[in-house]
């Protein structure tokens, strides 16, 4: 089945072919408004998939918290690496 022709810039990231990646990146909106809009889109996708459902469980929030812990670890890694096998804490 032939797909409708879509402009390269408007394709989703997973549909962009490797050779078109440069064009895709060049055409995306990296202004502050654009970044805020993309963050909002990502947040809405996550919210509607995991939290805004009829019988949402603890998984939706737990994934967010686990990601937060991982991101915090990554953020302060430079500070934490000194703690690993030091003799006197």
């Amino acid at each position, binding site marked *: 089945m032939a797909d409708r022709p879509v402009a390269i810039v408007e394709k989703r990231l997973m549909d962009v072919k490797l050779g078109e990646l440069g064009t895709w990146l060049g055409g995306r909106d990296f202004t502050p408004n654009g970044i805020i809009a993309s963050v909002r889109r990502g*947040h809405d996708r996550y*919210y509607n998939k995991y*939290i*805004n*459902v*009829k*019988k*949402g469980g603890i998984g*939706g*929030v737990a994934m*967010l*918290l686990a990601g*937060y*812990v991982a*991101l*915090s*670890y*990554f*953020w*302060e890694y*430079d*500070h*934490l690496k*000194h*703690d690993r096998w*030091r003799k006197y*804490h």
Partner: protein
Amino acid sequence: MVTSFFDQFSSPLFMGIPLMALALLLPWILLPTPSSRWLNNRLLTLQNWFLGMFTRQLLLPINHPGHKWALILASLMIFLLSLNLLGLLPYTFTPTTQLSINLGFAVPLWLATVLIGLRNQPNLSLAHLLPEGTPLLLIPILIIIETISLMIRPLALGVRLTANLTAGHLLIQLISTGLFVLLSLQPAVAILTGALLLMLSLLEVAVAIIQAYVFVLLLSLYLQENV
């Protein structure tokens, strides 16, 4: 590099952004905005139930003009609650351990209550400085004492929250360090220490919730006197 137990309270930079920015941003991400649907998802229902119950309970003793403060007190409560509880996760940063943040909450809100009282009902506000039935000779001293206690309220609010959370985090770090070292040396003592750490963690969860509540409750009390 010399490290101390207080290093957990520093906010390390990553590409120029301190970790505190991420920690302050997270309650905004975790708490959903109310929608206009009749039946919401479970998280939103839970949040609405909690906020409704809390606001009703908090505004019970406050008379009508003070009800304008409902929104800010409820949002302050849920912000402090989420900041405190999120700080108990490993590797996270708790903004409320910083005195700057707590004083930034306490001083403007306290000052607002005092100024509202002085502007709308100056006689009544000044009358709060002298309890009823004091002997005549004690009046000057008591007014001075009451003024000092009024001025010290924002400091007390800020320092109370800071000290409670900082002490809790320090204790957790100290006992877990001891547990870690003891595991290889004397496993039996390590089990006792582990039990202590478990109970301490439960205490810290309670303290996190209670301290947020106390902060907002005291503010509502100051409001009730002045409005």
